[in-house]
């Protein structure tokens, strides 16, 4: 388990304009200033979440994600992958602990401020959550219209986003007539059209066949390459094996580091990154592997995790 480092401090009064909405100071994507690039974009500190008082879904979950990272989040069904994401975009509220997004504790946000948090996030779901009777352009335009952007800018941004997801020229099509993979691309375009700081993908390939799943993953990698941080929750082992991104496992209510990005697991690397003696998550990961094996599912490739 990754233990806590020093608590990141929220912005000082000098950094944040007086009376401004939370996150209104934030600049998305790769346009963040140099000081901002040094800070982790997302920190979970001792996060607890209960749906049932006796069985917490999360118990003391800790996680630090740096700006520009691509992070796979995996774990068995019901482990709390979606819960973590829902806590980040504040569909749910933590029962204890802190979640810092760009240094701000979003767990304590009031209801009025939550929309302003979400404007800095792009969210993609397994069931796409697109409006089928709207056109592709209308679906992608939603976040821009919420920001009251001029129509000229909206049109330009939509065209750019559709180009990025491979749907150039399809803006006028009714979304409901598109295939599943294309609808998911529409959802991805909607998520990135405002160039958010962080994209949360909650099982985005769950409804797609393996080839389409790989295509969508590639799309997220391209998005990540443009400087946007991506948190990609999936239990699709083929995807986890196909790409060497950082991998965190949620199991038994805790978050374990299973693999660091682009290289094999090294406990010292994680320790150095978090500033504490991080504990490799082998037991939990092996526990997960054992459970998946019992389920007859493919095993996560964990040969790089020290035993």
């Amino acid at each position, binding site marked *: 388990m990754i233990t806590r480092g020093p608590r990141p401090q929220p912005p000082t009064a000098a950094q944040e304009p007086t009376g401004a909405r939370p996150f209104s100071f934030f600049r998305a994507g790769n346009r963040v200033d140099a000081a901002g690039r040094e800070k982790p974009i997302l920190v979970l500190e001792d996060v607890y979440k209960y749906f049932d008082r006796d069985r917490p879904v999360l118990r003391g979950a800790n996680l630090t994600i740096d700006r520009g990272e691509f992070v796979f989040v995996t774990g068995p069904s019901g482990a709390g992958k979606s819960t973590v994401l829902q806590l980040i*975009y504040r569909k749910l509220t933590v029962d204890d602990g802190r979640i810092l997004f760009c240094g701000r504790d979003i767990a304590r946000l009031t209801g*009025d401020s939550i*929309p*302003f*948090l*979400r*404007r800095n*996030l792009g*969210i993609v779901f397994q069931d796409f*959550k*697109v*409006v089928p*009777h*709207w056109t592709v352009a209308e*679906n992608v335009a*939603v*976040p821009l*219209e*919420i*920001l*009251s952007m001029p129509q000229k800018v909206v049109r330009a941004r939509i065209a750019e986003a559709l180009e990025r997801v491979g749907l150039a020229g399809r803006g006028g099509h009714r979304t409901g007539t598109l295939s599943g993979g294309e609808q998911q691309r529409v959802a991805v375009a*909607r998520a990135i059209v405002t160039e958010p700081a962080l994209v949360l993908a909650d099982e985005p390939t769950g409804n797609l066949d393996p080839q389409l799943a790989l295509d969508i993953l590639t799309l997220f990698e391209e998005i990540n390459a443009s400087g946007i941080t991506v948190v990609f929750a999936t239990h699709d082992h083929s995807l986890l094996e196909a790409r060497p991104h950082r991998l965190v496992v949620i199991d038994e209510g805790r978050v374990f580091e299973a693999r660091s990005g682009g290289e094999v697991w090294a406990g010292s690397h994680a320790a150095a990154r978090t500033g504490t003696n991080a504990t490799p998550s082998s037991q939990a990961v092996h526990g997960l592997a054992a459970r998946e094996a019992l389920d007859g599912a493919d095993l996560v490739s964990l040969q790089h995790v020290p035993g």
Partner: protein
Amino acid sequence: MDLYTAFLRARRGMREDAKLYVVASSSLVVAFLCLAAAVLAMTNLSAVSERWSRSGRMTIYLRDGVSEADAQRLRETLAALPEVESAVSLSSAEARAQFTRDADLGGELAGLAADAFPASVELTLRLGTSGERAEEIAARIGRVSGVEGVETYRAFFARLTSLVAAGQTAALCAALLVLVCVLAVVGNTIRLAVAGRRDEIEVLKLCGATDGYVRGPFLVEGGLQGFVAALLALALLGAAFFALRGPLDGTVAALTGVRVAFLAPGVALAIAFGGGVAGVLASAVSLRRYLAV
């Protein structure tokens, strides 16, 4: 969110739920038609009441056989009274001709006897003459030989006043009924629209829409529904009014002394905008109950 964006999104929503809005608006048109008709009736009754309360009119009917010279003398005597502004003598034939002209019934009155109406003297009292003073004058005139009777129209005016009061109560009841109707119809329409657009609302919230942004178009839709329904009702009432005014106006004018009039532009606008406000109110109540954003 600005009003323009809310309006654009409301337009899209109404287009998607066009059938729902057409059915709902039709019910509202009927409701507003009742209200506008009640207000129209009230407006004209009030005009009649106003006309008669201000006129201070008095008609002195002369006995049969009173000579024209006597009638003229009586007119001159009455015209000299300080409370009398004007006194006009009307012979039996003139009264008949006037009625025939005002009633606008043409040949149907051709068979009326020449002396069907008694000769009379029409008095117009000066403004500010009290009802009591008018009654005193009427009593004194009534004692003059050759005078058959004096009509002060007080009883008619009293009946008219109570009729206007009853009409006002009826119009108020109609207004309340329409408000309840608008609340129910618009409220339910918005409830159905919210249920039909649950997915859109979820998408908006996930993309960072504020509660106001989500609610805005529904409020606009409610307001538009009320406003357009009220406007259509006024248009229908106007069409019916102008179609019927031709044949009725002369008769009504002859009977009451007032020409029928349509709603004043201010009143019509008040009904239309009142419909809009009631729609917004109904939508807000419905959203409060059914839209958990």
